[in-house]
C-alpha cells in the first residue's frame, strides 16, 4: 500500500511555497521513489512538510475568507494567505459559486474570475472599486435571488454556538492560528468574541 506523497502532488504544491527555492524543487525531482514512499530521508520529509503547509494554507484560506456582495453579482474579499495559493482557492470557489463573479485581494494583487472566464490578476495598486466594476460587468445577471439577510446574521449565529462550560481558548487558537485572525479581516466576529466575550456570558459568569 502506498503511503508516501506522489511526486506530482509535491511538484504541484512546492512552487507555491513562499520559501521554496527552485534549487530545492530540482532536488526533490531527484529524490528516489523509495525515499518518497517511506519519507525516509530528511529531504523527502522536508518536501512533504512544505507541501503540506501549502495545502493547509489553501484549506484555511478557503475556510476563513468572508465575502461581501457587490451589485448582487460579485463576491469579494481581502485576505493574506501565507503562500501562493490563490489559484487553488479559486478552482474550488468557482465550483461553489458558479454564477458569481469572484474577487480576492491578497498581498500579491487582485485575483478575479467570472462565470466562464479565466482567472485574472490585477496589480495591488489598482482601485478595488474599479476591479469590482470590471468583474461585475462580465456577470450577465444577478446571482442573488433569495431574500438576503445581510452579514449580521453570522454574528447572531456564531454567538449562539458557544458553550461556556467548555471554554477552551488554547484549542481555539490551535484551530484558528493568530496569523489568520490577524490577516483575514473577515474574522472580526471571532476576534471580538474571543477577546471580549458577550454581555450574556459576562452576566452568566458573574
Amino acid at each position, binding site marked *: 500500500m502506498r503511503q508516501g506523497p506522489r511526486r506530482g502532488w509535491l511538484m504541484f504544491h512546492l512552487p507555491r511555497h513562499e520559501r521554496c527555492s527552485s534549487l530545492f524543487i530540482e532536488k526533490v525531482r531527484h529524490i528516489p521513489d523509495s525515499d518518497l*514512499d517511506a519519507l525516509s*530521508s530528511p529531504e523527502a520529509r522536508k518536501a512533504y512538510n512544505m507541501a503540506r503547509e501549502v495545502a493547509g494554507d489553501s484549506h484555511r484560506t478557503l475556510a476563513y475568507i468572508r*465575502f461581501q456582495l457587490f451589485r448582487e453579482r460579485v463576491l469579494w474579499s481581502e485576505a493574506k494567505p501565507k503562500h501562493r495559493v490563490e489559484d487553488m482557492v479559486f478552482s474550488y470557489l468557482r465550483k461553489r459559486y458558479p454564477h458569481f463573479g469572484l474577487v480576492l485581494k491578497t498581498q500579491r494583487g487582485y485575483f478575479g474570475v467570472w462565470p466562464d472566464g479565466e482567472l485574472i490578476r490585477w496589480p495591488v495598486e489598482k482601485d478595488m472599486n474599479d476591479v469590482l466594476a470590471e468583474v461585475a460587468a462580465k456577470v450577465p445577471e444577478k446571482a442573488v435571488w*433569495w*431574500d438576503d*439577510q445581510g*452579514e449580521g446574521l453570522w454574528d447572531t449565529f456564531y454567538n449562539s454556538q458557544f458553550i461556556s462550560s467548555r471554554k477552551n481558548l488554547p484549542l481555539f487558537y490551535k484551530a484558528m492560528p493568530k496569523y489568520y485572525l490577524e490577516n483575514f479581516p473577515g474574522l472580526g466576529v471571532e476576534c471580538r468574541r474571543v477577546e471580549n466575550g458577550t454581555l450574556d456570558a459576562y452576566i452568566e459568569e458573574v
Partner: protein
Amino acid sequence: MGLHEKVRILSDAGKYDICASTSCANPPAVRPNASIGNVMPPGVCHSFTPDGRCVSLFKVLYTNACSMDCTYCTNPTCHRKESFQPKELCDAFMSLYMRNYVEGMFLSSGIARDPERTMDDILEAIELLRNKYRFGGYVHLKILPGANLDQIKRATAIADRVSINVEAPSSSLLSSIASNKEYGNDILLRQRWIKESIKKGGAPAGQTTQFVVGAAGENDREIIDRLWMEYRDMKLKRGYFSAFNPIKETPMEKEDGTPLWREHRLYQTDWLLRVYKFPRREVYGVLDDDGMLENMDPKLALARRTFDRPVDPNEADYRSLLRIPGIGPTSASRILEHRKRGGRIENIRTLKSMGAVANRARPFLMLNGWQASMERWWS
C-alpha cells in the same frame, strides 16, 4: 419575531448536537440541478468557537417545540417556542453560505406533537433548498424518532448524511432519561431503515449517531458495546459523544456534569475500534472494574498492558507496530514499506520522518539493540 431572533433561539437550542467538521462523502454526491454550492471531500471548518469546537455547518433546530420529556434537554422546558418557515430557513442559510461562513446545513428539530408531521416540515424545507434554491452543497439531516419509512427514503434521497441519536446505550437507560422514547422501535428500527435506504444509494456520507455521555448513569463499557453493535449492525460511519452538561431549568439541572475528559477518552477509544480496527475484547483491557475508562490515552494504557519488552521496529509486524503509541496505520505502513525495500530503522529520526510521534513511541522501542534510557512506562 424577526428572523435573526429565531436564528438566535433555534441555533442556541441546537448547539448541543454534534456533527463532524469533515463529514462529506468521498466522492461527494453530484447534484446535476444545483446552481450554487459544492461538497468538498475533506470538508472545511469555517470557524471555531472559544470552546474550540468547529462551526462548519448552519446547525439549527427547525422548531424547539417538543412533546418529548428528555430530562437533559432544554427544549421541553423552554418557554419561548419558535419554528422556522421553510422559506425563512432557506433564506437565512443561503445568506450565510453565500458569504462563506458555513459549509452546509445541519438540521434537527424538537418533536412538536406528531413526529411524522414535524418530519414532513423538515423535509419540505430541505426539498425547497434542493429544488427551488438549487443548493448542491452538504446537508446533514436528523431523523426524528417516529419518522416513517417513506420519510426516511425521502431524507436519504436529499441529504448527504442522516442521523438519529441513540442518546443512551440501552433501552432501560434511555427510558430513565426519556420515558416516551422507545429504544427498539423509535431508534433502532429507524436506523435499520436508514441502513437499507443508504444501501440503495441514498445519503452518500452515511449515517451517524450520538450518545449523551453520563446522563443515564451508564458506564463506558456499555457505550463501547453499543457503539460496536452500531458499527456492525447499522453500518454506522461514526459515533459522537456529548458529555452531559446540566442545563438550567431542566429536570437534571442539579445533577453533576460529565467531565470533558471522559468524552475525549471515548473518542480515542472509538478511534481504536473504528480506524485501528482493534478487537472489542482487546479494548476492554483499558476499562477498570466498574467498566469505566481511566483518564489516560487508551492506546497508551493498552500498550502498557500488551508489551512486556521493547519492540524492534525492524522486526515487528504491522499488528505490533500499530499497538505502539505514536505509531498509526500510516506510519506503520511506511515502516513496512521502508523495510520491504531493504531499509532499516536506525534511529528515532528516521521514525520521526515517517510520521511517527517519536516521544510517545520511544519508550516502547528498541533501536539497534538499544532501548531508550528513559523510565519504562510499565515499571
